[in-house]
């Protein structure tokens, strides 16, 4: 079995790419003749897997929506991404002016590992201020730690240190990052917006970096850029369309993030782990990124299938005039946009915390 078109003989590779393109076009033509209607969700993982997943989800506050088999729950890729691409063009602008910061607030869970395969899952709330011409700033607050087994707690419990709250200057560097590059504001504004050009640039970056599964990395780069960096509307729109070009991308309708918000999941599976982003096609908002173990052996993790090992839920974005200096944020700037219509999830209004 071969997961990668690149390992096939050249003729099969060409044929595969031609078939893929033709099928997408045919599907797009067909879907343009009927209203978009995602398929009903069906078939979760086994009861045991689900039980573990739900346990983890409840304990961590992680909204695991279940395993996505390779052939289930899927909707036409082009439809949901095209809707998001269109929505991005009319969404409020999130492009900072000169001297301003792009602010993003998120809640995330990460897998921490130790010797002997012991693990712990740490949940943190993170605020980041990103600037094109000043040092980027990050503030992290530990919310909870979950140990899947007593052994994990014994091994890692004593080593957990709460770092709260300590704003941290990430690096003396600054700039808006796309792929491997830190861009100035002018460079970001002149970045090509064509989906093919975006895809090829990101692909070329990952190939230069010596990555074997370059197409998988393109998915990750697009996901990170859509969620964590500012972009002009046309570029944001182009990124959603570029996502449709990622080979093996799967879309899943009616996925809820850990805050209960409904979106569409776009995912790939690599090395035993499913990487998924959840976005709202009606607003082009990124809601969540997460990684779920589907094959622990292949992933090299002492985890259970279905376990969320990493997720980041996006709570809000804003343009601010300043960033904190060694103390928690005390109202800096004006919120122009918040995730979920500012319904209890975005806390960065003027004078807010």
């Amino acid at each position, binding site marked *: 079995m071969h997961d990668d078109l690149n390992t096939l003989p050249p003729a099969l590779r060409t044929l595969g790419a031609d078939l893929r393109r033709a099928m997408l076009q045919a599907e797009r033509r067909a879907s343009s003749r009927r209203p978009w209607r995602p398929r009903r969700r069906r078939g979760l993982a086994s009861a045991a897997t689900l039980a573990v997943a739900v346990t983890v989800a409840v304990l961590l506050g992680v909204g695991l929506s279940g395993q996505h088999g390779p052939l289930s729950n899927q909707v036409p890729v082009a439809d949901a991404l095209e809707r998001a691409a269109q929505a991005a063009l009319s969404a409020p602008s999130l492009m900072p002016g000169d001297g301003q910061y792009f602010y993003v607030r998120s809640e995330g869970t990460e897998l921490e590992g130790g010797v002997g395969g012991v693990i712990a899952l740490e949940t943190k709330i993170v605020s980041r201020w990103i600037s094109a011409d000043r040092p980027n700033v990050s503030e992290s607050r530990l919310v909870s730690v979950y140990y899947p087994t007593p052994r994990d707690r014994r091994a890692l419990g004593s080593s957990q240190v709460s770092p709260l709250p300590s704003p941290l200057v990430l690096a003396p560097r600054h700039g808006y990052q796309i792929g491997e590059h830190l861009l100035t504001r002018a460079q970001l504004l002149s970045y090509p917006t064509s989906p093919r050009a975006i895809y090829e640039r990101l692909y070329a970056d990952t190939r230069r970096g010596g990555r074997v599964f370059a197409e998988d990395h393109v998915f990750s780069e697009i996901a990170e850029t859509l969620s964590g960096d500012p972009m002009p509307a046309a570029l944001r729109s182009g990124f959603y369309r570029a996502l449709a070009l990622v080979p093996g*991308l799967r879309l899943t309708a009616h996925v809820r993030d850990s805050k209960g918000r409904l979106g569409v999941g776009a995912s790939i599976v690599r090395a035993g782990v499913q990487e998924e982003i959840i976005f709202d096609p009606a607003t082009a908002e990124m809601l969540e990124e997460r990684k779920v173990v589907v094959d622990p052996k292949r992933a090299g993790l002492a985890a259970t299938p279905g376990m969320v090992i990493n997720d980041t839920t996006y709570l809000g974005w804003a343009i601010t005039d300043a960033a904190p200096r060694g103390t928690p944020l005390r109202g800096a700037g004006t919120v122009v946009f918040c995730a979920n219509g500012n319904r209890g999830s975005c806390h960065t209004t003027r004078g807010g915390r």
Partner: protein
Amino acid sequence: MGLTSEDISQLYARHAQDILCYCARRTLQAEIAVELVGETFAEAFVHRADFRGDGEHSAIAWIYAIARGRLADYFRRGQVHRRALERLGVTPPDLLESDYERIEELAALASLRGQLADGLAALSAGHRDALRLRIVEERAYPDVARELGVSEQTARARVSRALRVLRRDIVGIEGVADHA
């Protein structure tokens, strides 16, 4: 449940090479095998709504069933009927030298041809000539018939019988005679 183009692309990425070997070992011709792979997946897409299985295993079994049907059709007609490929507007690519080498290697066609040569030596002259013209020289059945001075139906029957005889000794092309 039916499949999407993404499902079929994924199945292609994972299984096209195996299906290529399956077809190459039965046709002994790399370019025909590539065409059959293309037609198989194109047909899977055209009939994607008809898939009633659940999961990858049943999907790939369904794809193999299509491939077997395309192979049978190829042996009946003597050429690949590209109906689904044409419907999608896809033309199979011309093979490069490296493609021939790679496919020969993947499907172990060299050893298969060695067995075939031994098997051919054991055939009657009439059957051997029919096979040589059809398989080695890749002549169309009307040409084979003309060359042998027999009807096209007889030419097809000789090729079919010869393949059936070879089948007894050559595991790698078993199934060919059933479709010839």
